[in-house]
């Protein structure tokens, strides 16, 4: 018999399992409940809901990391809420759950294979509970992590650093420039002879007001995707960098270029400043690995991800290893 929670109670702000057939919360007896399966399922979980069997192991490792992190924080607070013993058993005994992580009022559901559930929506405050007991925990700190996980518009290459943008040379538009690059690739306006422009290491030139806003979001040349070099390199070796210029034509380097994507992927991992929050493998030692978690139940996998193809690897994420 399942001990899994079935509904979210908006009054108690926690997941519950209904008793009998009445749609009321067993704790507060109010009817402001919603079936978990009906809930909108979005963002943070997108990282971990992967369609294929082989990825459930990875999904499970993330769950494991989350739970390990939560345990660590709970222990830190030493409020008598030490559930280490029981939690450690989870990966080997999937039926023992559920473990719930949630925050805010409108939870999102993550269902692991072993009675794990995690609910959160990125708003401040993360809670954790098990088995309907309500011994949950609200703590600061994690919110940034979840906010980051749930922010969906910070994709593509990470921003360029202020210093690397400052170090980008300003040039005067000459006839030579006009012959090769007559228009700014971003605004599509003609460059004016004698006016100023900024030159990236790949030699592509832009109006300062056109390129800076882009680089502040993504360190990637709009034409060829080359990055601004990390600061330090740029000032000392600016001139030699020009020799690295990849292509001066914009025609072929666009679009579904595999290299471009490769870069995106790498940088995606590299820029997670909160990775240090993860407890890594140290405390999530329970040797779950792909097999145990991955095969036990064919559940879940409902969200807005599309994954009719190979999911992206999250290079740089600790749970990718091992």
């Amino acid at each position, binding site marked *: 018999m399942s001990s899994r929670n079935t509904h979210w109670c908006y009054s108690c702000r926690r997941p519950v399992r209904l008793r009998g057939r009445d749609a009321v919360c067993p704790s507060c007896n109010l009817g402001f409940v919603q079936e978990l399966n009906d809930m909108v399922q979005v963002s943070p979980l997108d990282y971990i809901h992967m369609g294929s069997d082989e990825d459930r192991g990875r999904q499970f490792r993330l769950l494991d990391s989350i739970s390990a992190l939560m345990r660590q924080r709970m222990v830190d607070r030493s409020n008598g809420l030490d559930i280490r013993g029981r939690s450690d058993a989870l990966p080997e005994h999937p039926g023992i759950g559920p473990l719930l992580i949630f925050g805010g009022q409108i939870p999102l559901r993550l269902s692991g294979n072993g009675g794990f559930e995690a609910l959160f929506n990125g708003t401040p405050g993360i809670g954790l509970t098990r088995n309907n007991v309500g011994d949950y925990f609200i703590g600061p700190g994690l919110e940034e992590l979840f906010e980051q996980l749930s922010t969906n518009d910070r994709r593509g290459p990470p921003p360029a650093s202020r210093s690397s943008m400052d170090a980008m040379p300003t040039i005067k538009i000459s006839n030579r420039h006009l012959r090769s690059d007559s228009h700014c690739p971003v605004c599509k306006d003609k460059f004016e002879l004698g006016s100023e422009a900024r030159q990236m290491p790949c030699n592509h030139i832009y109006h300062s007001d056109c390129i800076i806003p882009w680089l502040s979001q993504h360190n990637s040349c*709009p*034409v060829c995707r080359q990055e601004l070099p990390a600061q330090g390199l740029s000032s000392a070796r600016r001139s030699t960098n020009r020799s690295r210029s990849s292509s001066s034509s914009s025609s072929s380097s666009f*679009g579904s270029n595999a290299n471009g994507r490769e870069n995106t992927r790498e940088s995606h991992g590299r820029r997670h400043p909160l990775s240090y929050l993860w407890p890594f493998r140290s405390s999530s030692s329970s040797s779950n690995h792909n097999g145990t978690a991955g095969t036990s139940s064919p559940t879940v996998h409902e969200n807005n991800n*599309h994954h009719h193809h190979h999911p992206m690897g999250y290079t740089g994420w600790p749970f990718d290893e091992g």
Partner: protein
Amino acid sequence: MTSSSAPSRKALSKIATNRLQKELVEWQVNPPAGFKHKVTDNLQRWVIEVNGAPGTLYANETYQLQVDFPEHYPMEAPQVIFLPPAPLHPHIYSNGHICLDILYDSWSPAMTVSSICISILSMLSSSTAKQRPADNDRYVKNCRNGRSPKETRWWFHDDKV
């Protein structure tokens, strides 16, 4: 219905307006082969007719793309979807959403409506099977509140198709 929903419709910034006016002029002078844009007074939403390229699975078929521009175009990608009926293609969902990296993570402000169109036609042309993505039903069900494809965290794979 997905097709009628737009991303948060903030008016175009001045920069976006300037850039789109230029693109519109350029389009009229030099439209990409196989595409027709029915020009309206709405600069922020373009509806573009696509003709399947001769000699491909989509020859003699016509589809419509809807392109919605965000306030800060071209710093952000436009939202591009097929209006129903969307072509049967392994990377095109029945709700019109298109799995194509340049529309999301790989967007660059040097790209244009015209270059997007060419990428989409090339994606159609290289298809070897008229079929929906394997996860079509699940994906579409999860989008039923009119979610923009830009909110989806796409995973891109090979670009053979």
